[in-house]
């Protein structure tokens, strides 16, 4: 394989990765798209309800400013205003681009229509039935294919990330003459079919999705999103942010091997949540508390109420009319009938909150660059737009927009800092990087046992409503797990995941308030002094926790 040429290297071929590849091609920059599985298997295909954009097509006088406000408020004011502004302003253009790539968004009488979604009063969510992600992916895959054929994108299927290639150079821009800058020069990958290694040179965009692996089998996502890349980058000095914010989606059900999501679209189209009172009467607790729009409050708000009510909650879809079922939710009905052997048209479905999305992740600035120059992150693996709680319909948007921004930023430094300068230096070709070599060791049975124990600890300590003492105890237990893992010679991937888990706990322990998806029983109120983003970094082998105001890091 041609490792000699310098390209932008995208790790992960879901929506953010595809969006980055397209943008780079448009900018005339060649890229490589590296993924273990083809894009058809990516978690982006599971996204259901839709994608938000102010198109103002529904006669409600929607404005971009309201989309910005809703996103900031939904995220409890932790997201950077300028970044959210960029996201929401670009959203209508993204819908136009997607339509151009071939996405046939739902229409009525020829006009594009939008549906209601959580945390937003206006109908702002463009959709295709309850399979918006799948349909967008189908078109984006073809759009990338065009750029593959014209040589701009090189796809590397069945390859996995195994390490980062970095340089430490004197930072000439820094005030302190002794300070160094870490720069990303490329990435190591391994062919998962024949185990051969390659060193790829050029800027790197990480688009590896959420940290599901830390909670394996407990999330609505895929098994492919292991979180191992985020964990390895963390250990290599990349900063992570807002790890305490884990979105529990209100309407999930347990199926064999995982949790299954019932799309928020079900409530957007008129579904209601209730529990049975003492006299078997249906109590629509959200409507009682918040009025008419109660069922479409942000996800963090609803999950918290469901957790605290102590009752089995049901999703009542029986009042949705037949036309809506046929035109907008037929796929959702089919899925519920298959997995739950119940027809939602006839019977309410018992639901409970389940882990659905990680608002936190790799810390990026407005240009999506991490604290390592030339290393970017986009999509769910990054911490960018969603603050303390993500609004439904903003994840597809955030993945595409983030991919585009990361691509443009990488393109901007690609020629000056990579072409020529690094082209002649291929010193990583000997694969002598110790950490990379250790990363190749696959987990054994002891590793799996440690991971299962860690997962149980985390799931209990980082539930919807958390207790300070439990988190503290979990941190101590994680320390002993880490020690045990080292004594047993656990593989480096396991050790990194344990450290990532600990960082999640430390972040949750540090936040003495309740905000968004983080609810601490002892501190039920939002506290002004915590209106900051938590950042974790590895320093001398230890986790250092600090806080920054939204936007502070970006400037």
């Amino acid at each position, binding site marked *: 394989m041609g490792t000699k040429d310098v390209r932008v290297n995208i790790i992960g071929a879901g929506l953010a990765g595809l969006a980055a590849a397209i943008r780079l091609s448009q900018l005339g920059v060649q890229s490589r798209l590296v993924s273990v*599985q*083809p894009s*058809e*298997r*990516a*978690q982006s*295909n*599971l996204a259901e309800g839709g994608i938000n954009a102010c198109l103002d097509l529904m006669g409600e006088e929607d404005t971009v400013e309201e989309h910005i406000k809703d996103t900031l408020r939904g995220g409890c004011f932790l997201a950077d205003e300028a970044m959210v502004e960029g996201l929401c302003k670009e959203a209508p253009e993204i819908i136009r*681009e997607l*339509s*151009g*790539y*071939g996405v*046939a968004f739902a*229409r009525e009488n*020829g006009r*594009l229509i939008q549906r209601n979604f959580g945390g937003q009063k206006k109908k702002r969510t463009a959709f*295709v*039935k309850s*399979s918006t992600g*799948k*349909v967008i992916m*189908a*078109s984006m895959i*073809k*759009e990338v*294919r*065009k750029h*593959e*054929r014209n040589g701009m994108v090189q*796809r590397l*299927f*069945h390859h996995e990330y195994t390490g980062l290639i970095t340089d430490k150079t004197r930072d000439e821009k820094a005030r302190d003459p002794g300070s160094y800058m870490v720069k990303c020069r490329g990435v190591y990958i391994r062919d998962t*079919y024949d185990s051969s290694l390659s060193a790829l040179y050029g800027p790197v965009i990480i688009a590896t999705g959420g940290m599901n692996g830390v909670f394996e*089998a407990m999330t609505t996502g*895929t*098994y*492919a999103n292991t979180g191992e890349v985020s964990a390895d980058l963390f250990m290599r000095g990349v900063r992570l942010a807002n790890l305490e914010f884990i979105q529990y989606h209100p309407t999930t059900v347990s*199926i*064999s*091997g*995982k949790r*299954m999501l019932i799309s928020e679209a079900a409530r957007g189209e008129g579904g209601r949540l209730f529990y049975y009172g003492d006299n078997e009467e249906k109590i629509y607790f959200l409507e009682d508390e918040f009025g008419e729009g109660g069922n479409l409050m942000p996800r963090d708000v609803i999950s918290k109420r469901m957790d605290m009510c102590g009752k089995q909650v049901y999703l009542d879809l029986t009042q949705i009319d037949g036309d809506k079922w046929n035109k907008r939710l037929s*796929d959702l009905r*089919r*899925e519920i009938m*298959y*997995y739950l052997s119940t027809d939602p048209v006839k019977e309410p479905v018992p639901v409970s909150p389940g882990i659905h999305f990680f608002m936190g992740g790799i810390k990026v600035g407005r240009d999506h660059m991490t604290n390592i120059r030339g290393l970017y992150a986009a999509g769910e693996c990054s911490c960018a737009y969603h603050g303390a709680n993500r609004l439904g319909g903003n994840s597809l948007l955030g993945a595409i927009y983030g991919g585009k921004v990361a691509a443009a930023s990488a393109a901007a430094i690609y020629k000056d800092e990579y072409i020529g300068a690094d082209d002649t230096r291929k010193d990583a070709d000997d694969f002598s990087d110790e950490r990379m070599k250790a990363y190749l060791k*696959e*987990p*054994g*049975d002891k*590793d*799996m046992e440690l991971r299962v124990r860690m997962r149980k600890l985390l799931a209990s300590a980082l539930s919807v409503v958390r207790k300070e003492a439990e988190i503290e105890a979990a941190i101590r237990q994680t320390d002993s797990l880490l020690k045990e893992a080292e004594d047993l010679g656990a593989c480096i991937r396991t050790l990194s995941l344990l450290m990532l888990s600990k960082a999640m706990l430390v972040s949750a322990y540090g936040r003495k308030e309740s905000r968004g998806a983080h609810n601490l029983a002892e501190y039920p109120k939002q506290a002004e002094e915590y209106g900051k983003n938590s950042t974790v970094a590895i320093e001398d082998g230890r986790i250092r926790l600090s806080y920054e105001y939204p936007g502070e890091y970006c400037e």
Partner: protein
Amino acid sequence: MNRLIRIRRQENKDSLPYYEEFCYEVNDGEARISTVLLELSRPGVRNKAGEQTRPVSWEHSCHQKRCGGCSMIINGEPRLACDTRLSDLKGDVIRLEPLKKFPVVCDLLVDRSAVFERYRELGLYLEEETAYDGYDDETVTEAAFCLQCGLCLEVCPNYHPAGEFLGMSGMTEMAGLLVQAEGDKAGELKKTYRRDVYEGCGKSLSCRNICPAGLDMEMLLARSNRRAWTRR
């Protein structure tokens, strides 16, 4: 209840295949083959004789019929592992084998990349941006639901990865493009379709009812055939 699972295994593409048996204790009435394989693919797994053995390789991602990763042959039938409940499988032994049309990488993991490479070579994409002009969006959306899992290719008497015929998943990959493509690209796609889909399909209908996404294959095929032979 215990179920006996017999798996066709192969360490790598050059090694000889063999069968190995495993005992699986069913605790969950809803357990699917994907649930079983999660267990059998863990390090430290033991076979029926109680000996520690190599974890079973397979491709999987979503576990809910939305990614098409876990295609394999289950008791002789091509199916998705996540779409097959143990309770639906009769008999004492459950037999798991890799798809036969594609090269085995390891155990149940096969290399389907030839499918995607073919799409690239044939230029299955839109050259220009499309705009909604009242086009048949029902076909575009239905076709987009295809998982590219390859089950329809496995049962097809006319499909072979090295042959020209693209199979029904190739038809679905083209169906939306035939609706939306304009100008020269539309002509090129129609020509490709006629040669690599229409002429290759033997109309055996062996792919009927195989699609795990439940695509209306005959509707898509009929409409695409018409489009490939007419102006629109």
